[in-house]
């Protein structure tokens, strides 16, 4: 290596050193330690005590809250992610075609994502007050729909959490919008001249060119929906009121680790979450070969 190259390498290493330390101390070591803890009984005060697969066994066979939270988290992810993607895409399409006033709409759609989750959840708890004096129930009353129980009803509490997630759709919408604005106008124009209608242009040009952005939003949406915590804790506490219906997976991890200090059990739950997120993400990336279009034929 020339002295100049060596100097460059030394500087490069020096600039990235803090991040390297962080990767080792706050990422790689903890992942290994979490896997290790998951095979132990560990309450922080005494040293971890090896118990093999007992934590995993308890989880799958002896903890009804585990299955309940898996069900709740799956329900939340399976509905809020696809619904959120479709609505964000529709909003972006609406915004994209119309240049006038776009700035104001963009700001309005983004505003809800600024509200800290604790505050937005409390606001929604007020909006969805059960009985006939809650705002949403009063608005439904105008259309003759009877008052709903919402957060007091075990079947309706999760939908309220999903509504809350849809309120924060702004960021995904703006990412779609940026993707739409990157599509060369000449392509759409050429298709129009060739006689393609709106739907054909959408299916054959817009959607394929937007698919990398769709992939990005899908992966990020899935990863974050599996980790929903604050909203569920504010609504249902650590028991997932009403009747365990808002007990999300992150809530039982938090409860095991920082209320009961069963670090071993909480680690086993975390490892499971990690594996599931990994598998789902890999499946999405694998399926991406079939539906994501990369310019230049990289697919």
């Amino acid at each position, binding site marked *: 290596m020339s002295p100049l190259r060596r100097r460059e390498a030394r500087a490069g*290493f020096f600039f990235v050193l803090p991040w390297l330390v962080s990767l080792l101390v706050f990422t790689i070591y903890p992942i290994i330690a979490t896997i290790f803890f998951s095979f132990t009984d560990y309450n922080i005060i005494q040293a971890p005590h090896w118990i093999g697969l007992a934590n995993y066994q308890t989880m799958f066979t002896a903890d009804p809250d585990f299955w309940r939270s898996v069900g709740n988290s799956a329900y939340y992810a399976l509905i809020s992610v696809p619904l959120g993607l479709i609505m964000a895409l529709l909003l972006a399409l609406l915004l994209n075609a119309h240049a006038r006033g776009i700035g104001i709409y963009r700001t309005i759609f983004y505003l809800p994502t600024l509200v800290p989750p604790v505050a937005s959840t409390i606001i929604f708890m007020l909006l969805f007050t059960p009985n006939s004096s809650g705002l949403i129930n009063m608005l439904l009353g105008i259309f003759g729909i009877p008052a709903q129980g919402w957060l007091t009803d075990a079947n309706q509490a999760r939908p309220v959490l999903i509504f809350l997630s849809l309120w924060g759709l702004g960021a995904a919408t703006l990412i779609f919008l940026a993707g739409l*604005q990157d599509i060369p106008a000449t392509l759409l124009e050429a298709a129009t001249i060739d006689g393609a209608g709106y739907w054909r242009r959408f299916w054959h040009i817009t959607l394929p060119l937007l698919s990398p952005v769709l992939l990005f939003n899908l992966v990020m949406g899935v990863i974050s929906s599996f980790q929903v915590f604050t909203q569920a804790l504010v609504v249902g506490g650590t028991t997932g009121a009403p009747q365990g219906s808002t007990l999300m997976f992150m809530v039982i991890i938090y409860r095991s680790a920082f209320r009961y200090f069963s670090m071993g059990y909480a680690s086993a739950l975390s490892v499971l979450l990690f594996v599931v997120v990994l598998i789902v993400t890999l499946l999405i990336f694998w399926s991406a070969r079939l539906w994501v279009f990369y310019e230049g034929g990289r697919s």
Partner: protein
Amino acid sequence: MTQVYERERVSMSSPARTHKVPGVRWRPRLISTGRHTLLILVSLICLMPFYWMLISAFKDNGQIFAVPIKWWPDPIHWENLARTWNSPGFPYLHMLGNSIFYSVTVTIGTVLSCAAAGYSLARLRFPGRNLLFVLTVATLMIPTIVTFIPTYVLFRYAGLIGSYAPLIIPAFLGNGFFIFMMRQFFLTIPWELSEAAKMDGASEFRIFWQIMLPLVKPALIVVAVFSILYTWQDFFGPLVYLSDPSQYPLSLGLFAFQGQRTTDWSALMMGSLLTTLPLIIVFAFAQRYFLEGITMTGMKG
């Protein structure tokens, strides 16, 4: 911006074409009206929770739950502001100070460490750089909780539980998301600039500090505003690491307040309003950078 204009030209040319066909000239206008109606409707739905928070903060409980709906507080209960502000359960100025301390220190650490690491990954060649970059992107896919428990144990052994140290120290070492963002920005700067400075004998540190950093100032501001936003909204970290209520930042303080005043909705709405307001003020001044940052994340993904 130019693209927006281009697209407008396209959409203006299509009505001209349909124009030739008699009888369908009304369609573009109808579509435009429909689109506007929809956008306004969605905007109203987006704004409604804000509006309800704002007016409920100045109502009493009787007005909040009045039938029919009261769209304006009458009379306006200005005293709610002082009542919440001075409530022992919600020491606003103190918690505001905590939140500002928390987000400002995290942001300083994040901007410094991520600018340096992003610069290194984008423009300096050293062995193992590609592997390091792949690892950096991989950290974005790891759920936070997977690394959280052993990290908590580490800080416990260091005797730092109950302080802001575990919340702040990691920020000074970098954050995968922002490093990725900074790297993408640094890649867009022409190579001639740093090559010329190198030929003139400037040290690598000087090139970074005096030539590169001023060029990526917009990117530094983007990272800073998002770091402020995320830290202000952070709930899990403070919930786990802080125990003394006098240390609480606003998010956690609002959660504790909600635990005490479950049904005092006007106080809770005032608390929510006071917790959100500083972020809205930051957004008002830095809106351009927020929008730029969002556009960035999607593009390069």
